[in-house]
């Protein structure tokens, strides 16, 4: 079940004109911004499929950049996001790709600031609902049927067991888990799908672990 909530159908409240090409695009941009953890100095955005063909008409470009500026889907600054990004000193580069992707509404976003860099592929599946299918060259396989979190951490021994220990302490069962890293000893990620809802206190506890950089809810 890709859509879980009544508000995936009646919602989001958003700036027009397209839920998939505007609101969904803004949400993908914002996930990228959240993963980077700060405002980037450079944003490279590659558009595929229907996104590539119709981005100007749908305001997909301003929406993604609006998301990168941390704007929500209903932020009235979205239409002027390109100008605001320029004023904020963000170097924005758009590329229109011909490659055929699995989903027609696909975008690759690469953000960087100093030595921090994040690259993701997002798809906008309709009605403003999005999925992140790739993160830092790592393919994410989320069913969307269960709550899921993403843990960004340093590639050190003991981090995985520390995270799973906290989950087990709170009687949260892991249904699916993947770990990956770019390079030995550098940044690594865990994607964990669980059966129970992960409360804020659990999130805070996970965030406090040594070598854990970031915890992000992928599916509520």
């Amino acid at each position, binding site marked *: *079940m*890709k*859509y*879980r*909530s*009544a*508000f*995936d*159908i*009646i*919602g*989001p*409240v*958003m*700036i*027009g*004109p*397209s*839920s*998939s*090409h*505007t*609101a969904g695009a803004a949400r993908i941009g914002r996930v990228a911004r959240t993963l980077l953890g700060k405002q980037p100095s450079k944003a490279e955005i590659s558009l595929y*499929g*229907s996104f590539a*063909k*119709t*981005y*100007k*008409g*749908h*305001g997909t470009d301003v929406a993604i950049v609006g998301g990168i500026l941390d704007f929500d889907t*209903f932020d*009235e600054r*979205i*239409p002027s996001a390109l100008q605001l990004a320029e004023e904020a000193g963000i170097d924005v580069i758009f590329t229109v790709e011909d490659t055929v992707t699995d*989903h*027609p*509404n696909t975008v690759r976003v690469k953000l960087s600031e100093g030595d921090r860099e994040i690259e993701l592929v997002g798809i*906008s*599946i*309709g*009605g*403003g*609902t999005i999925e992140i299918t790739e993160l830092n060259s790592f393919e994410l396989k989320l069913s969307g049927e269960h709550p899921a979190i993403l843990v960004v951490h340093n590639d050190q021994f003991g981090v995985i067991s520390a995270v799973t220990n906290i989950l087990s302490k709170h009687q949260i069962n892991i249904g699916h888990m993947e770990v990956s890293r770019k390079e030995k000893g550098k940044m690594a990620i865990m994607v964990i799908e669980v059966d129970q*809802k992960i409360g804020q206190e659990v999130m805070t506890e996970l965030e406090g672990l040594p070598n854990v950089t970031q915890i992000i809810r992928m599916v*509520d």
Partner: protein
Amino acid sequence: MLFRNVAELIALAENKGVKIAEIMIQQEIEVTGLTRDEIIAKMDRNLTVMEQAVERGLKGVTSVTGLTGGDAVLLQKYIQSGKALSGNVLLDAVSKAVATNEVNAAMGIICATPTAGSAGVVPGTLFAVKEVLKPTRMEMIEFLFTSAAFGFVVANNASISGAAGGCQAEVGSASGMAAASIVEMAGGTPKQAAEAMAITLKNMLGLVCDPVAGLVEVPCVKRNAMGASNAMTAADMALAGITSRIPCDEVINAMFLIGQSMPSALRETAEGGLAATPTGRRLQEEIFGKKQ
């Protein structure tokens, strides 16, 4: 999940003797862990956004390109002239659907139902039927939960994306959702609501997504008009006791399969249909220059 298809949804509502809206609210409580009050307050806020969008559109808006805007006002004036051939409730629904989508095209604030391109149909019919049925605020919120329940089934079993399934997935879904909600608000049974959804969607099968210049303007605004009138007609048919020979879930599946076999040119790429007409191409060049 309490239900995965329309048949399960209807069975639940019938067995518990409650409205479809109530089943959707119960599922939302189960899935999100939020309280009933929180969930209702959230939908109340979406309803307010819809009200404000209709209000704004009825005052008259124009999109950035100038391609759309002002038609909701024209229609309201026509209704007031007393010369309208269709019923006033139907035209009021059309006008309010158009109003919402004109605001959307003008990059105003709207609530996607289920998408932005199809955001006019559900509120358009709701605020027109409201004038006749005089519902309470809570009944209007329930109207939206009923729409959500049917949209939820379509989104998970077929699609609500024009890029994936064409306009039948967007305005088609919205129109079916609205028809079911109208039936429930008018006192119809859960089964009649499902019949209305099936009848509506059957009339939308195969509808392509062919936006001129890739803008959610032409033909999207007028497709919302058609979606609203289709919903009103199907709701009346279901309330009259007319049923669909093909069950609702099978119609939804047919919509999914049709979307899958639809060529890419007709799925929100602005490469086929009305977008590829001489006028469509000319408008695209006027707006974006020779090459996009």
